[in-house]
């Protein structure tokens, strides 16, 4: 099937959790009853107006939504092309888009009577969001974090601990996000009856990719209304960074059937795709099965998962959400990539021109905006998802710049 034959890009997944060939439920039998229970509980909650109403309340009063749609005037002037808007997810409580999803999942965990919350985290933003909601609702919280990430994201480790969460450094495999996810799955297999696994991105076994997407769609839904109010029409293009891809899916999904809207996902190219040291699963990977779903993955010829590399801990994952994999194959979303160098340059420029220190993750999206925008007409409306703030990355960026000086 090609894009022109599809009536809607928004109907997936099917009842077995598939987006085309992607997605599915590739988990150990121990977890299957839980996954089916979660699927049923989420379907019931989704149909319950009281659940939605309570979530809206917390999103407004605790998270601080709606987040602004901000006209980035000086960057627009600098590039002299498309009119650049930022969707300010960095202004949410906890500093990133992650909290939208966590609010939904923790309220679902409460409805299901689960007594213990586990999560994996890469950059720490999902871990902080989970620790925050667990503190608010009085739930014990255990966050698995690769030992390498614990090292490079210390501020977030301290935040999680202050919020009362237990951070468990993961020293198996490559000590990063994929290993944290393995460890969280092992915990879940072991503590299956009382534990809710709060996954941070649009990946994992069905229903997670669809559920996390639904919680993040508030980003795109607000953008739609806000752009209508600001410019009286839809945006012409959307740009977001993609690790697992939850911020991107949240922005993209409400616009998938508006064919006039061009959509760009930006993966982390690390030291460059040809170097092999990157985290660009679409550009440098192929379809395989890991962490409960079929999707694009980085691997060797034997099907062994290879280590991703990115300066951004949040993008340092060898896979991508299955719905993104499908949207790539359908040609609805164009996948680009940005290197560590390009992301750091964008990080600096955005900080200095807009007074907004972006997280390293959306700095990857900005890097591509900087070469897309100048080629576009002045009436082209471009929305970039400013998915998180960069306070957590100052040490990493300073160290990176220092090491460049020495070379």
């Amino acid at each position, binding site marked *: 099937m090609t894009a022109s034959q599809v009536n809607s890009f928004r109907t997936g997944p099917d009842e077995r959790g598939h987006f085309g060939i992607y997605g*599915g439920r590739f*988990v150990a*039998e121990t977890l*299957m*009853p839980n996954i089916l229970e979660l699927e049923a509980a989420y379907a019931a909650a989704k149909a319950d107006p009281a659940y939605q109403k309570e979530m809206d309340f917390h999103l407004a009063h605790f998270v601080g939504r709606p987040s602004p749609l901000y006209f980035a005037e000086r960057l627009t002037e600098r590039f002299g092309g498309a009119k650049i808007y930022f969707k300010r997810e960095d202004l949410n409580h906890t500093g990133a888009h992650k909290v939208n999803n966590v609010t939904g999942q923790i309220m679902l965990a409460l409805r299901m009577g689960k007594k213990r919350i586990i999560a994996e985290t890469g950059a720490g933003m999902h871990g902080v969001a989970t620790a925050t909601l667990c503190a608010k609702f009085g739930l014990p919280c255990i966050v698995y974090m690769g030992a390498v990430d614990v090292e490079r994201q210390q501020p977030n480790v301290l935040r999680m601990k202050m919020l009362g969460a237990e951070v468990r450094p993961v020293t198996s*495999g490559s000590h990063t996000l994929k290993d944290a996810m393995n460890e969280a799955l*092992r915990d879940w297999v072991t503590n299956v009856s009382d534990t809710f696994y709060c996954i941070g991105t649009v990946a994992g076994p069905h229903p997670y990719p669809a559920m996390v997407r639904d919680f993040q769609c508030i980003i795109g839904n607000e953008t739609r209304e806000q752009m209508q109010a600001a410019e009286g029409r839809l945006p012409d293009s959307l740009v977001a960074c993609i690790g697992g891809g939850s911020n991107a899916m949240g922005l993209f999904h409400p616009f998938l059937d508006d064919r006039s809207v061009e959509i760009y996902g930006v993966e982390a190219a690390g030291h460059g795709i040809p170097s092999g040291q990157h985290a660009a699963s679409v550009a440098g990977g192929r379809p395989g099965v890991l962490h409960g779903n079929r999707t694009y993955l980085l691997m060797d010829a*034997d*099907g062994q998962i290879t280590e991703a590399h990115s300066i951004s801990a949040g993008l340092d994952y060898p896979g991508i959400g299955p719905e993104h994999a499908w949207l790539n194959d359908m040609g609805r979303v164009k996948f680009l990539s940005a290197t560590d160098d390009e992301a750091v340059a964008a990080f600096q420029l955005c900080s200095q021109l807009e007074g907004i220190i972006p997280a390293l993750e959306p700095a990857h999206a900005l890097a591509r905006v900087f070469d897309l925008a100048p080629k576009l007409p002045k009436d082209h409306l471009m929305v970039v998802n400013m998915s998180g703030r960069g306070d957590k990355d100052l040490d990493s960026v300073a160290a990176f710049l220092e090491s460049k000086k020495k070379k």
Partner: protein
Amino acid sequence: MSTRIEKRFAALKAEGRAALVTFTMSGDPDYATSLALAKALPKAGADLIELGMPFTDPMADGVAIQAAGLRALKGGQTLIKTLAMVRDFRKDNDDTPIVLMGYYNPIYIYGVDRFLVDAKAAGVDGLIVVDLPPEEDVELCLPALKAGLNFIRLATPTTDDKRLPAVLNNTSGFVYYVSIAGITGSAAPDATKVGAAVARIKRHTTLPVAVGFGVRNAESARAIAAGADGVVVGSALIDVLRANLDADDKAGPNLVKAVTDLVSDIAQGVRSAGKVAAK
């Protein structure tokens, strides 16, 4: 058409005892050692052999088996070599059933159809693929059954009576009952509870039920064997293997003997459980 697995369980049933199923990781710590160990296992008392197919991200395994897989990969093991190892094993053993156990991605990347042809030709009898629940049967289970291989499914304490029929449907050879909700190498299960769980599964199937997870020595093997058709031991063997590696993870001179000594000991435990299981 009865497979090696079916024949072996039928023979042991006639003998009135449970089967000892051993798990070792193919290629751990290197091809030659791992093959020598596999070849020595039947003589030490292993009735069925499970060979792990190493994978970088074994989400249901504890530290011992995770490390074994990584050692094997570091030693250059691939799925191609695991199949070669089965062929080498079959050169002088045509009756011990071999079950390959692992995760789906390496098989998916090898190509399902090609893998089934090559596995069958190599002398593989059954497959256990941890991350393929019944919901994903079209991926590998149905093609494997069609190719004449047994597809052995895991049942767990969380698999309730409502779900058991779905799990048992399309399962063949035997049922692998994972005795605790947890990862491999976890604490010993309560033998009484295990017996009750096996009885519950047997109400739904005529297949033999082998029990794994938490079996570490002759005593725990005997307790489990008394209430099951088979006992699986894995992490305990791998712990002994690891204790016989040098600082660079190279095999020590006594490795095969040390592991097979424990297998002999556990086999005694299984055999001493006697005819209880047959009832």
